[in-house]
């Protein structure tokens, strides 16, 4: 079990994309939620994924994180073709996802949430009996939160008594602990106060500085412009444009989001 909580700088060359998505298609019955989408994410880069409701953002990232299995197309991670049939397989490949509102179990404590799905066990009788090592899990959580300067008065407390910002911090801490080599964040600033939003964005920037690429889904365009290097716009399942953040503005992006502009149609 990996227990060093350092964020590894990726060995991948700067020029090689960390994640390549090629012609991805996901259908739900007659509805094509994601339609032949390409997406590249390079090391140390924050990519904003924006679009109106039902544009296919969440479906796309759920295909990457193993929740959904795409019908067509390929996903390459760190140069290798990957098929994730379950979320744990993506997590094992160090793709960590922070889902909006549903990342944590409110009835479990901070430590239990950080280790959910990957509990530390003590084995007895040749692995027949697996007993939880709760003390070690809490100790590791405490070290982690201290290192990330996340201030939670009592991490043996259940998640549901924490504030929204604290919960988000726990979710991010969990991804850091498991050595995320790609971080996917679905609306991480939703339902947060202004100060907490800013703190989450600072955390995103610091992930980038440590070479961890981030895919950020957000409705809040100011947030997207504040932290991303590139912006990808989806509209009705298709990628309609991809712009460097420095070379565009929110007005132009909104026009893509509502379908007034569409690069894929012109080409």
């Amino acid at each position: 079990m990996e227990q060093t909580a350092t964020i590894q700088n990726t060995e991948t060359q700067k020029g090689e994309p960390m994640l390549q998505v090629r012609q991805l298609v996901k259908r739900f019955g007659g509805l094509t939620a994601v339609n032949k989408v390409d997406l590249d994410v390079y090391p140390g880069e924050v990519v904003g994924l924006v679009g109106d409701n039902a544009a296919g953002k969440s479906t796309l990232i759920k295909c990457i994180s193993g929740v959904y299995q795409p019908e067509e197309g390929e996903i390459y991670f760190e140069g290798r073709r990957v098929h994730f049939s379950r979320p744990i397989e993506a997590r094992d490949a160090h793709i960590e996802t922070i889902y909006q509102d549903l990342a944590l179990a409110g009835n479990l404590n901070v430590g239990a949430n950080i280790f959910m799905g990957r509990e530390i066990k003590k084995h007895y009788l040749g692995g027949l009996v697996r007993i939880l090592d709760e003390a070690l899990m809490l100790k590791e959580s405490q070290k982690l939160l201290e290192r990330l300067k996340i201030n939670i008065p009592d991490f043996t407390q259940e998640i549901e008594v924490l504030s929204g910002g604290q919960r988000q911090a726990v979710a991010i801490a969990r991804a850091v602990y498991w050595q995320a080599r790609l971080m996917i964040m679905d609306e991480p600033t939703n339902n947060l106060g202004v100060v907490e939003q800013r703190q989450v964005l600072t955390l995103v920037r610091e992930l980038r500085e440590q070479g961890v690429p981030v895919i950020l889904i957000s409705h809040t365009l100011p947030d997207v412009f504040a932290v991303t290097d590139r912006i990808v716009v989806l509209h009705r399942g298709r990628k309609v444009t991809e712009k460097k953040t420095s070379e565009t503005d929110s007005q132009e992006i909104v026009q893509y989001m509502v379908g007034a502009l569409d690069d894929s149609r012109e080409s």
Partner: protein
Amino acid sequence: MSQITAQKASDGAASHLPWYRRLFRVQEFGILLVLIAMILIFSVMTDGRFLTPVNIQNILLNFSWTAIAAFGATMVIITAGIDLSAGSVMALTGLATAMMLSRDHSPFLGPNGEASVPLVIIAIVVGLAIGALCGSINGILITKARLPPFIATLGMMQIARGITYGWAQGWPVQNLPQNFMVLGRHNIPVGTFNLPFPSLLMLLLAVMAWLFLTRTVWGYHIFAVGGNIQAARLSGINTSRVRIMVYTLAGLLAGAGGILLSARLGVAAPTAAQGYELDVIAAVVVGGTSTVGGEGSILGTVIGAAIMGALRTGLNLVGVQAYWLPAAQGAIIIGAITLDQWFRRRQGQRGGLSRLFRRRSA
């Protein structure tokens, strides 16, 4: 990294409180008070007859099978599920075991045959396997066919009951061997007190279920599924497997209760354990397990089952006709849970209530 703080979480940690204040935060405390109050009231009303060793023995025996089945139901309800099939599964497993052991029915025995110990063991194992099978079918229906637990187990309740009636042709199966009935009738001397064997088994199973729920990865996953099934699934927990396991255990434990019941009564009637599923659920919810999931404990269930058992025996001793019993039971369910809710509100957030007995704190 960046500093993510927020206002201090409400109320702070229970661990800062002295032990006697922490005791008041324990989830089971409220219902424990109810049990103690009931014992006191019945003792006074019966001039102490309620607390004689023989009567305590009776009460213990009385709620043993309900409690055993309720351990499984506790786990089911922690996952935010429900199992309505417990009573029918008890009847079916009791019948299956009896069918293999009764002189009148067993294909392995002649008309005057007496079952050997190995046959008794095999019959019990077969009974338990049938219980586990019923439970696993529930689990598969819920996770694979995506039926609501209420519907799947309602169907199983009827199916198991129907099979029991059909198999027994409506008649009770009698003439069970001594070496089977001893399981329900033998007392284990503990000092001067005679502990009925089913009660001993109930206590052993309680300890095992408690350890399972609080100390193993499986137990941990049960709480995670009940707390937030989406989060559990996305974290990589195989939620279907957890739920199937929980219903299978519920079936297995209901089976154990059913076998003990027929050993005690010396007969397996197709009408046995009718309505017990509600007694089982009552014991669990009176014991403080939340029906919305994510919260509950085995100790609470033992106390809940004891409350229901004490009530039955107590009213009987006080001289209340048995006809009135269900009304009293209903009142106790409502009263105990109202009191429990009141305790919880007074103690603040619900998390603090459970520290001593549940898995969340170190």
